[in-house]
Structure formats: C-alpha cells, structure tokens
C-alpha cells in the first residue's frame, strides 16, 4: 500500500525488481538512473559485494512530479537474486506496491526463473500477499543472447496463465527498460484511491 505523507503532500510507492541472480535487475536500475534527468531522481544506493553482486538491495528514488497537489514518488528496489540471500530478499518485499519480475532468456537459466518466481510467491505469502493481489510486470531480459529462448517458453515457466504484462528487454542497452517501468508505474497508480 502506498505511503502518504499529508503534511508534505507526498504519495510514495515502492516498486521491487525481483528475479534470479544475474538476470539484470541492477542493470535496469542503473540504466534508469543514467537516463532520468537531475532533479527527478535521488541518489542511487547499492549494497553490493566487491564483485558487484547485490548483497541486500539497490535503491533509487524517482520523482514523477506533482499530481493534484501531491508530489508523487517511486522508490525502486532490487532484491539480491542469488538463492542463498533469501532472508534479505524477503525483507525487501515488505510494503511492496508493485513488482517487476526480471527473467533471464538464457536456456540454462530457465529453471532459475521458475524457482525465483516460486520463491517470490512464498515470500509474498509471508506478508499475507498473493501475486494476484499486486501489479506485476514480467520483463524477459537478455533478448540479444544468440541462444535466447523464445519469450513464450520463458513465460510458460513463470507465468503460465499469461496474467502479467510482458516486455522484452536488453537492459544493458536500455531496450525495454522504461517501457517496463512505465507499465508497472501505471498499474500501481491505477490502484490509488480504488481501495486496493
């Protein structure tokens, strides 16, 4: 649920990038950070290991601007993708308003995609949430890999019911990055005032 600060007339939303290790979650945030003009973004915070693997989370605040007298802001987070960081991953989901699931197109990561989605469902359940309760956007990343799996195959293991809006991406080049963020933002905003 969004956090509203009436005194400062702010509405804040928390969007979490989830997915298996090395699928490109941090790359998404880095691209966004590099392209959003100064004044519309805060500092990017990365809690990473020396070899640049996310240890706890990355964080990037974005200002959408003022809407009906309310400053509207998005706080973007990534979770650590590596399997053994689940305790940290669970903490980041607290109070989430929307999720981008970043899946990897590499054939040898198909199982990791499925496991990460299952893990996300389990972690959400600990907060009494279901995937169906939240805006979720699926980003199928690394479409530039020569052996990239067909999108439908990736989708079949993470979203067999075809419920989530899906975007193809090459996050290293920014392809699909803003489209994904825009869609999840739109879905999150659509719930404001709807009682969801």
């Amino acid at each position: 649920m969004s956090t509203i600060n009436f005194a400062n007339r702010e509405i804040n939303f928390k969007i979490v990038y989830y997915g298996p290790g090395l699928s490109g979650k941090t790359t998404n945030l880095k691209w966004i950070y590099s392209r959003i003009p100064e004044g519309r973004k805060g500092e990017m915070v990365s809690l990473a290991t020396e070899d640049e693997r996310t240890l706890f989370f990355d964080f990037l605040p974005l200002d959408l601007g003022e809407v009906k007298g309310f400053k509207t802001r998005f706080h973007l987070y990534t979770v650590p993708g590596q399997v053994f960081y689940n305790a940290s991953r669970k903490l980041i989901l607290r109070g989430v308003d929307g999720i981008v699931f970043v899946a990897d197109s590499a054939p040898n990561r198909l199982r990791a995609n499925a496991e990460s989605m299952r893990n996300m469902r389990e972690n959400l359940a600990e907060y009494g949430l279901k995937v169906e309760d939240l805006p979720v956007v699926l980003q199928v990343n690394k479409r530039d890999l020569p052996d990239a799996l067909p999108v439908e195959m990736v989708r079949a293991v993470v979203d067999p019911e075809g419920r989530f809006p899906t975007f193809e991406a090459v996050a290293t080049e920014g392809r699909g990055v803003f489209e994904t963020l825009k869609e999840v933002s739109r879905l999150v905003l659509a719930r404001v005032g709807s009682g969801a």
Partner: protein
Amino acid sequence: MVEPSLVLYGALYERALGVLDETLRETGARYALLIDRKGFVLAHKEALWAPKPPPLDSLATLVAGNAAATQALAKLLGEARFQEVVHQGEHMGLYVDEAGEAALLVLVFDENAPLGKIKLHGKRAAETLARLAEEALANPPKLNLDTQYREEAKALLDELFGN
C-alpha cells in the same frame, strides 16, 4: 492482508513534530526522523544549528533495511526483538528505536551529544511516537483521489518515460 499504511496528518503530525523537536532540544542531536518500516519518512526535524542533512530518502531506506535485518537476526536467536540500535563513528552517531510495530525513530547525533541523553530521551520519544502511530493506524484518513489523479499521473509518466 495488505500491510496497513501509516499516515500522519493534522494534529497527529503536529504532535509527532513536537516530539521530534523536543527530543532534539533535550539530546543535542542534529536530526530526528520518524520513518515507517518500509523506509519512507513520515516526519522529520533538524536542529537549527545543524548543517544540511544527508539525503533523507537514502537514510530512511537504509535504516529500515537495517532494522528489518536486525529484527530477523533477533528471531533467529529466539528473541522477540532487539532493543534500540546505536552506531557510533569517530564524529557521528545514529540511534534507532522502534516506535511501535509500524515505525522507527531515528536520531543522528555528533560527538557533542552525550550518548546517555540520546538513549534516555530517545527511548521516551519512541514510546510517545508509538502511541501516536497507533492512533494514526486506528484512524486512517480517507484519500479522496479520483480518476483525475490517475489521468494526470499517467500524463507525467509519458513525459518522464516517453510514449
């Protein structure tokens, strides 16, 4: 169920500011913040003499993450919770205490503020703020945002992220 959102406004917000202000005066701390467990700033006060604070968003996010990790550690060790957390460097320090289930009190202080005072008044303030947060959770405000909000926000999304 979805976690309830803690919203402070009107008289409750003013009272929270009053508590933060008084805590700054009593302790000599530089900045006092009330943040929610998700890492959003609910209210903050700065001592008049204090230099510009670091980015509050980053501060709140990291403190909330840290507090969540500390709580998880406590549970691992069979404790319901760990009490307040204090970090002290050569010149600056950080005091974090639970203000009930939904919020955290954060005090940023320098070497001139006695740690005893920080802890004593920090604890008192956290208890008062916990009661305020409880009141706020019991009486959530109705947010009268309509389709117009969504339409205007959508236009801004187009502007920021392209069509």
